[in-house]
């Protein structure tokens, strides 16, 4: 927080400001880089960000069984890494998630032609993914409008992105000894019904209203930072990231 903000009657945070992680680059940049470890990490981020949207997409659009969908997800990301699908991405033709979804469609079609999904090692670990959790979430998605597949895929990508950001926020707050920050955020912004006032939250968590306001602002800002960080790692180019950030949070980022 700048000194100007403090001088303007700004709030004093009770917690230490959590440092922002190093700026992420777009997934294409990292995957096309020379460093093998960076490439693996980039692909890991890709898989982490897109596996749930892919799973839900396979279940609802392709109507695969849970087992088949799980196999396809695992195989797809493995093969995509091995065969360098992502490196063929051309930003001038479509957004990265549209490209990825198209690759997934083709993969499913090819897999269905073959008799079984091939599982290969290829130097990439089998992803440890919460498929049961994804399956549980499917109930709420059953009524989703699948007429616009790109929109559905995007919405799922955002959901997964937010979920990761929330989990990261919880983890980083606990690691820095500021669990109260996350508790306020969880109690107010993650409550099932949006009618919790600051006073109610303060009473429930034995805090002052001022503390609730402080913590909430800090948590929301941190959440946005984490979400933007993940978003950057899921976009094909910096320009795509800039546009997505604007649409998602109404901010102009400078990649």
């Amino acid at each position, binding site marked *: 927080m*700048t000194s100007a*903000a403090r001088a303007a009657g700004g709030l004093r945070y009770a917690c230490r400001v959590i440092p922002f992680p190093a700026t992420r680059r777009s997934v294409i940049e990292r995957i096309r880089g020379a460093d093998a470890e960076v490439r693996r990490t980039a692909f890991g981020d890709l898989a982490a960000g897109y596996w749930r949207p892919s799973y839900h997409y396979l279940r609802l659009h392709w109507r695969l069984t849970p087992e088949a969908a799980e196999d396809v997800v695992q195989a797809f990301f493995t093969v995509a890494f091995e065969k360098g699908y992502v490196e063929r991405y051309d930003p001038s033709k479509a957004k990265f998630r549209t490209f990825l979804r198209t690759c997934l469609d083709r993969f499913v079609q090819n897999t269905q032609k073959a008799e079984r999904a091939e599982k290969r090692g290829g130097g990439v670990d089998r992803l440890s993914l919460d498929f049961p959790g994804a399956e549980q979430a499917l109930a709420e998605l059953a009524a989703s409008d699948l007429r616009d597949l790109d929109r559905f895929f995007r919405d799922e990508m955002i959901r997964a992105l*937010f979920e990761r950001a929330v*989990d990261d926020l919880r983890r980083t707050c606990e690691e820095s000894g500021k669990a109260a920050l996350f508790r306020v955020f969880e109690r107010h912004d993650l409550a099932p019904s949006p009618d919790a006032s600051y006073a109610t939250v303060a009473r429930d968590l034995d805090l002052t209203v001022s503390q609730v306001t402080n913590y909430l602002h800090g948590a*929301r800002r941190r959440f946005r930072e984490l979400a933007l960080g993940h978003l950057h790692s899921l976009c094909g180019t910096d320009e795509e990231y800039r546009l997505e950030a604007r649409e998602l949070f*109404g*901010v102009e980022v400078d990649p």
Partner: protein
Amino acid sequence: MTWLSNDLVERLRDVASRPELASDRYVILRPIGRGGMGSVYAARDEQLGREVAIKVSNAAAPADDLDQRLRQEARVLARLEHPGIVPVHDAGLLDDGRWFYVMKLVRGETLADHAAALEHEAARLVIFERVAETVAFAHAAGIVHRDLKPSNVMVGQFGEVLVLDWGVARVLARAEEEKAASARTTDRHSNNSMSGTSGGTRMGTAGFMAPEQADGDSSNAGPPADVYALGALFFWMWTGRAAPADVNDISRRLGAASPAPSKRLAAIIRKCLSRAPTDRYASATELMDDLARYRQGSSVSAHRETTMERAGRWLVRYQTFVLLVLAYLVMRVAFAFLR
């Protein structure tokens, strides 16, 4: 992993997008709109117990170019106290150091949405003159808007007309000072940040932007650029379209409008839309003067009348007088015949 329902996803998007103010005076209620430079939210002023509008920049960080422009916009608005300009109540910093300002919450619709009510010349003229009057006031205060268009004009619930979005306005005096300072110090990289933009920047909206702005010379756009935009706005009010670059097209489309504007009014519009700034009205004040003459039935500077046109205008302007004289003459002739 935490599971987020659709409602929670939307809520998180909303709260994470909201600006965080550094004080408790204002409580953000809902988003109103978003432009290229900033986003506007309805908020409640807890001290005065009223609803206001808060505009924050879309800058990702304080002191970014967008942030500075928002600050500039607030300062410009604060200088312009006029019924046609939204008053600024307050300005300050967000939690993260970016600027915001607080203004009156205007309830109404933009001119773009209000077009259906502009069926007659009288209605169009009333709205347009109020816009021109507001811009003339700004010109008199040394400020050029540079982005006039239907979506930046709002018609309030009680018929008040407001010119919005002064985000790319240019302060002429400051621009001249900076130019002079730049020339004195021979610093070729002097930044016109407080007067607007550095040279070579294109500001404005296609179809309403003066040719000199479209060529990328917004830094030198003066009052004639606003006059062009006013002409384009008036053209739009008659035709529903942005003004074309070709003068012949302008005349043709105005003629095809239903109802078409009178010759003198069409001439005023064409003069505003002249390609060369020197061929237009020098300022919105001059335009206003010609419009006043038009309304009074007098000749306008934009149109050279033929003798027949002048006679016709005179007859229309003094029609009551002419009718009375005619009645007298008819009566005299009638008596002569009867005799």
